[in-house]
């Protein structure tokens, strides 16, 4: 349970003089006014606003000439600060060790902290005192402006009020005076959000997921296009961060949106004209292909530390050249990706795809599912893909090749996208529940396949490693890593049977048939 420190933020109506408000309050409360503070700071958060989602607020300012991060504490408390190095962006590992990093790292994960807006202004602090001259409420009158290209945009002047632990009554009395006598209303959003919007950004951040409201009786082509447009928006929103290589999630989110788009085109193919459909599917496959190598290396590098941590220390040290090699490869791969995604081919392919989504799809008779209600088409596909997975899974036994599981995983992704993008068409929890069981299954299938891919990729490094300094030692240690990956892959395979049994239980089979029936 959080401590009971209440806080409110009010907007000052236009034309209200902050000084007049202070004297108004001074007549009603024993008010101590403290010296004003100037602020000039940059709002930091990940592109998808993870800190905001965690209720945190991070700023960058200059303190005694040093770039300093300040993580806001609870209302009325000083921020936690740390001196940092000036950079265009910070990953958790770029922050100095200490309490600030400890608190931020779990919230941001692999994402980078980016400057989202710059704010300048003045804060006038004041305190309400009780009979003992003790502070019982804290106030801050803030007049801020967002610094944007070519000038400043004034933000709503605000009065922030924070209670003091154990003194709720005076807080409530003050709030009541502010809302009734002074007629103040709640401030719209935070200073950070307002500043981001003023600078032309979206306070909700760069999207990674889509939520498209659909009607069950909507035409399938219309519904599919609505979903595809939203997904194309995610691709476009994540492209600049991918090109600038701000963090690995931009590319990841971009690729997931492309994969989902391909899945919609495949599953709802009979809602589209065959010729143009084929061209667009080729275009998206090409995007997926040119971004694949970078993502594969990202995964290798992201998992590298965990993987290596399981080895004895001398082995770990011996592996340094492998990491360096991976990093070099990754740099090269990203350079190639950048070339492709800023090139003419991409411009033409993406432009073509956008025109396809925005244009006329032609007469219905070439497209048998086009006019059918989306609930019928999506339901049919969900039942079909599910049944197919059940059959494939049941055929798996100890002697099946790994590819049997890989194929099953592929179908699983397909089913997951169908459920996530169209599951809202059905009332009840079945779609969500299925996603959960499916995720559990996909986890083991994912581990099973990823470990194999990782092991193959590491084996493929061998010829290059042989030549570098420390190469022979690294190769030896690499053997241990590959062995470890094999063990994990086998362990995943052992878990498969249980997860699959849960996913394909007779009761679920009956429920799926019933829920998604035509």
């Amino acid at each position, binding site marked *: 349970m*959080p401590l009971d420190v209440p806080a409110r933020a009010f907007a000052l109506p236009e034309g209200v003089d902050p000084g007049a408000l202070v004297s108004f309050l001074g007549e009603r409360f024993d008010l101590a006014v403290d010296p004003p503070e100037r602020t000039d700071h940059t709002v930091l958060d990940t592109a998808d606003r993870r800190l905001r989602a965690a209720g945190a607020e991070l700023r960058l300012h200059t303190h005694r000439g040093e770039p300093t991060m300040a993580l806001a*504490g609870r209302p009325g*408390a*000083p921020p936690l*600060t740390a001196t940092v190095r000036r950079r265009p962006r910070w990953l958790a590992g770029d922050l100095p060790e200490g*309490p*600030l990093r400890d608190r931020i790292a779990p919230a941001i994960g692999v994402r980078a902290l980016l400057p989202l807006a710059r704010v300048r202004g003045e804060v006038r602090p004041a305190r309400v005192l009780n009979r003992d001259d003790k502070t019982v409420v804290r106030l801050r009158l803030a007049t801020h402006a967002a610094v944007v290209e070519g000038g400043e945009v004034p933000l709503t002047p605000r009065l922030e009020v924070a209670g003091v632990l154990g003194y709720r009554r005076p807080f409530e009395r003050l709030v009541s005076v502010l809302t009734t006598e002074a007629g103040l209303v709640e401030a719209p959003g935070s200073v950070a959000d307002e500043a981001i919007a003023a600078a032309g950004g979206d306070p909700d951040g760069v999207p990674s997921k889509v939520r498209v409201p659909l009607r069950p009786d909507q035409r399938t082509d219309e519904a599919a296009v609505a979903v595809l447009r939203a997904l194309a928006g995610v691709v476009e929103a994540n492209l600049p961060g991918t090109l600038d290589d701000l963090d690995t999630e931009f590319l990841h989110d971009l690729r997931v949106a492309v994969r989902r788009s391909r899945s919609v085109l495949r599953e709802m193919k009979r809602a589209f004209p065959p010729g143009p459909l084929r061209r667009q599917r080729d275009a998206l496959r090409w995007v997926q292909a040119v971004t694949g190598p970078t993502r594969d290396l990202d995964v290798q590098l992201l998992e590298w530390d965990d993987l290596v941590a399981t080895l004895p220390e001398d082995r770990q040290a011996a592996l340094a050249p492998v990491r360096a090699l991976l990093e070099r490869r990754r740099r090269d791969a990203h350079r190639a990706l950048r070339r492709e995604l800023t090139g003419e081919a991409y411009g033409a392919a993406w432009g073509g795809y956008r025109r396809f989504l925005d244009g006329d799809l032609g007469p219905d008779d070439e497209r048998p599912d086009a006019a059918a209600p989306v609930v019928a088409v999506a339901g049919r596909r969900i039942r079909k893909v599910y049944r197919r997975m059940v059959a494939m899974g049941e055929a798996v036994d100890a002697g099946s090749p790994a590819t049997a599981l890989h194929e099953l995983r592929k179908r699983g992704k397909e089913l997951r996208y169908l459920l996530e993008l169209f599951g809202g068409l059905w009332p009840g929890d079945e779609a969500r529940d299925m996603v959960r069981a499916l995720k559990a299954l996909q986890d083991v299938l994912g581990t099973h396949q990823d470990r194999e891919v990782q092991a193959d990729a590491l084996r493929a490094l061998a010829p290059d490693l042989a030549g570098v300094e420390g190469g022979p030692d690294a190769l030896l240690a690499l053997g241990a890593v590959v062995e470890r990956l094999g063990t994990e892959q086998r362990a995943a395979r052992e878990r498969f049977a249980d997860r699959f049994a849960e996913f394909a239980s007779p009761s679920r089979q009956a429920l799926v048939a019933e829920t998604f029936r035509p």
Partner: protein
Amino acid sequence: MKVVATYNIKGGVGKTSAAVNIAALAAADGLRTVLWDLDPQAAATFLFRVRAKVRGGGRKLVRGRTDVTDLLRGTDIEGLDLLPADFSYRHMDLVLDGAGRRTRRMGRVLDPLAEHYDLAILDCPPSISLVSESVFDAADALLVPLIPSTLTVRTFEQLSAFVEDEVEDPPEVVAFFSMVDGRKRLHREVVERLSTDRDDVAAAAIPAATEVELMGVERAPVVVHAPRSRAARAYRALWAEVRSRLGI
């Protein structure tokens, strides 16, 4: 949450002065800090203008029946909360005595605070008692003010030995010199020798200074009411040492 207790069997050596100044400095650094005034004399509670009254009394608190977070009070120092003293703490030894698993009792009051704070500072009353035992159990560090003399140093050594031998998971015991009078040769010599020789004696020493005495009048720690004074500087140096020893 790290727990630091200012502790000395002797009275009037600077425990409370150190506790409130360190607490204020920790809070200013953005650490969520709580100060527990364990002394029935309520010096820290008085300093922060909080009325000393614990609902249900100390007995209930230690038995775990009162929600300790309801008793917390915010202070005039931003980010610093106080668990106030109360007259009933005079009976603390009695309470603890009857309460079974006595060494864990202080820890049990602190447990629910751990999610809210980075640092708890316990301002202990003088005298060795059962309170002390459970303080030793709960603390990560004991901060022991010493007035420079050969005798106090011997007492400190006895305390260190006791804690080391008798406490299951002993706190780090760190002494610092308090009320150092630079005009006295004995003070200068003892401080000089011990703070360089021993690593359980802090390098920072707090000078005898009027600003510290004025805390009661100003109702604020020295680091707040006279931040540029020598005493304030000394407390900042002491806090820096404590912080790095605690690794926070």
